[in-house]
């Protein structure tokens, strides 16, 4: 019996006979549209399988297609997935608790490791929340704002390129894996030149960014913009038009707009259902209201739509990057506010006060006024939000990150229900969860 070999008790999927109607209602996804009485009726439908004809198996946590350590418990009848329950927490390292120990100055190093595929977006949302608490969010220099936009759009490209790679690999287009990683590496090479690191940059900081753009950055970006469109066209030849690719993705993992909204799904999952919701356009932050781009929307809510949305979002991001190149102003890259900005390196050598100031800012941090604030921005995976409550000290009293993948993973049972176990891989891949951010 399944109950005797359980090792984690209540977190796991229960055998069908042990379920209450309400739990079943949640697990089969009927919760969104049915009353409890209706769901109870559903529980003893004639086609409801006997328990000895179904099998509960684990997929993950050590499974190459679960993008890390996601574990899914699947109840199968033959090849058909009847129920699915994601079990998470294998990568939990208490980053929100750590965030309460680090100062606002150090916090960037923590949040950047959550969604490790879009670190700059995580730093951005943390910095924006801190700036709102400090009341300096309107005073960030123009160059810093445009640099933040440039980096976060390039980051969206690198993240979606990685999705292209993993999605291709999960569905058997193994050569796609190499191509996707190759293009992503081009973007990361630019990040390395700007921030010094390929990932986990801690580059966007409260008050601006850590350093100015290096000489020659414009040529590097232009080279990227020349290179990647051709490669995307190659992806189209390799995948988009291929009948096998379409057969694997079309109609798989369908989710309706109502379900997506009710489950709190954001980003490409929500947009694939036809809801044109993109925080960059709808609740603009930085200078997204000054650039021209399209919000890519699907219509069927299936895995193919989510693939196509991400592919075309790379193109839209390139469009934004081109416009940023045209308007990138000269000037300061961080706010000249003695409270949050360390003095420039050259001043430290000649001024005792500057040295003390530098020392104090990096050891004690800066005090942030009392208050609490929630800021949400559009990361490649959806809305990444940061809720900070400050008690007036240099460390956040509470720092919470609303991770898009954590919420999006809840869609998996609804997308997988009634599908084939072979499609489960396609569905996980199309949700594109980053487990570092799911578990934090």
């Amino acid at each position: 019996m399944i109950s005797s070999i359980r090792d984690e008790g209540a977190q796991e999927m229960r055998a069908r006979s042990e379920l209450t109607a309400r739990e079943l209602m949640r697990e089969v996804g009927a919760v969104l549209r049915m009353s409890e009485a209706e769901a109870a009726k559903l529980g003893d439908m004639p086609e409801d399988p006997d328990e000895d004809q179904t099998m509960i198996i684990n997929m993950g946590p050590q499974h190459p297609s679960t993008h890390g350590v996601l574990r899914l418990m699947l109840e199968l009848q033959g090849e058909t997935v009847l129920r699915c329950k994601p079990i998470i927490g294998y990568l939990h390292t208490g980053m929100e608790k750590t965030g309460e120990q680090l100062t606002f100055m150090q916090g960037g190093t923590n949040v950047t490791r959550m969604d490790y595929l879009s670190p700059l977006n995580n730093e951005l949302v943390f910095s924006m929340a801190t700036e709102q608490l400090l009341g300096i969010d309107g005073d960030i220099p123009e160059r810093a704002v445009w640099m933040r936009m440039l980096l976060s759009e390039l980051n969206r490209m690198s993240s979606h390129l990685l999705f292209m790679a993993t999605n291709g690999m999960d569905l058997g287009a193994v050569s796609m894996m190499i191509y996707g990683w190759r293009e992503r590496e081009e973007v990361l090479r630019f990040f390395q030149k700007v921030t010094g690191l390929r990932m986990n940059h801690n580059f966007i900081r409260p008050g601006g960014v850590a350093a100015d753009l290096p000489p020659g950055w414009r040529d590097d970006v232009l080279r990227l913009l020349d290179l990647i469109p051709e490669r995307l066209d190659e992806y189209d030849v390799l995948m988009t038009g291929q009948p096998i690719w379409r057969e694997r993705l079309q109609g798989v993992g369908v989710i309706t707009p109502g379900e997506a909204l009710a489950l709190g799904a954001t980003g490409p999952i929500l947009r694939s259902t036809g809801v044109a919701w993109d925080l960059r356009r709808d609740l603009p932050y930085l200078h997204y209201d000054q650039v021209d781009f399209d919000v890519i929307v699907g219509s069927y809510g299936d895995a193919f739509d989510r693939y196509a949305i991400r592919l075309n979002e790379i193109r839209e991001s390139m469009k934004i990057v081109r416009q940023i190149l045209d308007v990138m102003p000269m000037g300061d890259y961080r706010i000249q506010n003695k409270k949050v900005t360390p003095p420039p390196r050259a001043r430290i050598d000649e001024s005792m006060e500057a040295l003390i100031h530098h020392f104090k800012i990096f050891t004690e941090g800066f005090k942030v006024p009392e208050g609490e604030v929630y800021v949400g921005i559009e990361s490649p995976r959806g809305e990444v939000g940061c809720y900070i409550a400050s008690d007036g000290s240099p460390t956040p009293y509470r720092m919470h990150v609303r991770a898009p993948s954590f919420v999006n993973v809840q869609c998996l049972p609804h997308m997988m229900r009634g599908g084939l176990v072979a499609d489960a891989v396609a569905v996980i891949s199309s949700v594109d969860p980053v487990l570092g951010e799911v578990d934090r």
Partner: protein
Amino acid sequence: MSDTEHDTTDAAGDMDAPPVDIHGCPVSDSRGQVVVHPDRDRYVDVVKALADEGYAMCVDLTAVDYLEYVNRPLPPGVAPERFEVVANLLDITNRRRIRLRVQVPADDAVVPTLFDVHPGTEAMEREVYDMFGIEFSGHPDPSRILMPEDWIGHPLRKDYEVGQIPVQFKGANS
């Protein structure tokens, strides 16, 4: 801000001023963001009423343990308790956000679940239960989500110690 659609008892007609109360609950303004402070009994009703007004999505639900920070700014009529459950709602039609902060006492840390209004809060409420020990009555799956099932304690509480591993530096004289 497009908060003017709320029933506001503010008769001044000042468009910029936030409404004094939303569905009978005190309202405060936090750095330009609207925050509603319903009590526990009215919490689900307020969320339901807001959902009818267009706040169709609960993007985030979390909690704060105010054990060491009792005298925080709260609007008049709201008594501080140890825990606060914080829910962020989003209205995608009118493009606005609203936040709810519910006071939860430490000796009776139970809050009604939002699951029936916004099913997407299921995992978030499990996370809050796991991290803070706040129970959500009526939740379909009240189990831990991030920590192991047999874990003792709730890590994000302020009286929960931070574990540390001493760092050893090579070559340092000790």
